[in-house]
């Protein structure tokens, strides 16, 4: 069974909903980070004293989830379910193949490495 990396870039305010949806889909191993990005949404105009700026980059949260093949679809579904508002700026999901995955503690590789302990 192959291992894939699912990358989901979502609205920060939807991050909690995504976590909830992933939990319900039994996807338990993930990391998340704050990123800034631009995906076609309208620029925000801000003014500080005499300075007016267009802010082209929006705050996003990036999920990185390494899963075995059978979990790819449920992960994508959970990301979409949790992150979607219907407005421009909901984000993207990328799926990329993983050459190797290693669990540092045990040295397990690939499917073993991405299967959460206790399953």
């Amino acid at each position, binding site marked *: 069974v192959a291992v894939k990396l699912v990358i989901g870039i979502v609205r920060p305010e939807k991050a909690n909903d995504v976590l909830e949806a992933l939990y319900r889909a039994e996807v338990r191993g993930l990391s998340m980070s704050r990123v800034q990005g*631009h995906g076609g949404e309208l*620029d925000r105009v801000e*003014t500080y*004293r*005499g300075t*007016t*700026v*267009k*802010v082209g*980059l929006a705050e996003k949260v990036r999920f990185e989830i390494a899963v075995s093949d059978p979990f790819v679809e449920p992960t994508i579904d959970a990301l979409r379910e949790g992150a979607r508002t219907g407005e421009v700026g909901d984000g993207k999901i990328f799926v990329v193949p993983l050459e190797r995955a290693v669990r540092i503690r045990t040295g397990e590789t690939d499917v073993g490495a991405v299967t959460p302990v206790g399953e």
Partner: protein
Amino acid sequence: VIELPILAAAAKVDTGDTAWMLVATALVLLMTPALGLFYAGLVRSKNTLNTFMMCVAAIAVAAVTWALIGYSLAFDGDAPLIGGLDHVGLHDVTFEPREGTTIPHLVFMVFQATFCIITVALVSGAVVERMRFGAFLVFAALWSVLVYAVLAHWAFGGGWLIEGGTLDFAGGVPVEMASGFSALAAALVVGARKDYGRQALLPHNGIYVLIGAGLLWFGWFGFNGGSGFSTGNASVLAFTNTLLTPACSLLMWFALDLIRGRKVTAIGAATAIIVGCVLITPAGGFIAPGWAMLLGAVGALPCYAVIVLRPRTRVDETLDVLAAHGIAGLTGILFIGFFAQLAWNDVADGLLYGNAAQLGDQVLAALAAPAYAFGVTYLLLRVIGAVMPLRASERDETLGMDVVQHGEEAYSTGEGAILVTPEAGVEAEVPVKPI
């Protein structure tokens, strides 16, 4: 010999009293930006500026309404329910002392103005993170007149409470109970934040909260210490108690935190400082220092209980103005009824010293002020809500009030920001040369 009226007036002004009251006024004004800092630290980072701006707005709006009409309704004459209109637009408020004081009438007026300002700012704590800024401006203007000025008249300006014998040294009625119970009404009318009860809504900067509380405590020495309008015994007593009561509230809060969660919390400590300052506000000039310390410790209990229990309800009274101000103010008002001491205050004894009637007068205030504040605020917001939306849309609430209401961020990095208009005085295009 022609006696110049200006000299006769000047003779009645005490320079020492006036000097202290000028300083005390500035101290009380500082409390409002301090409250802004305290509140801003307690909200999420996307609402920092908006939360602080509600306090800034209170200064702008309430200072003007106070000068135009509020001061007159609060302090002109001694009709039981509301003052007169003789001081509208500060008419006849001059350098001559206000009757019964040794400070210029203008100083008395501006000192009282800072009380109105902080009280309006306090109420905002109930509705932060979702109330529209414009709607808050309208609310602030009307509330400062319809609720604050009326209750200030009742308790300070010659209205039925003060004439009936209720003791309120520095504002248990118009400031603390008024803001606390109005906050409850405001939270009910405006409604809960959309994420309330569903997500963890945590304070984003504990240091702001602690600095804000510290500055509030500092300013409170002017608030309580100035409420004797002189450098006399009552002011000195209130000033001293303003250190002792909050210190005891802090210790009690530490103990309660330890019992409840086995750890003493910093946000809890900041809250305890406010609670202690509020507890001593009505009682400051009326009770002995020893009783003030007891008040700090015992008075913290009901406030702590409300702070713990309120988040388990559906009432999103966001920054717990009811607990920290309403309940603490009510406790302080009642405490006077038991522990007031003629030997210390030269005014009246409480129940413990043989004057049970004083407790009756205090209970009256503890019933009337919350009822009036809650009722009028509730109706006022209903009326404003019928004319304009009170709260931001769900989408705007999600984005955060800073960007939506003010077009700014508290913590902007400048990353991804494209200059639209160059700052005045700076060359439009500075050639960038690689080194």
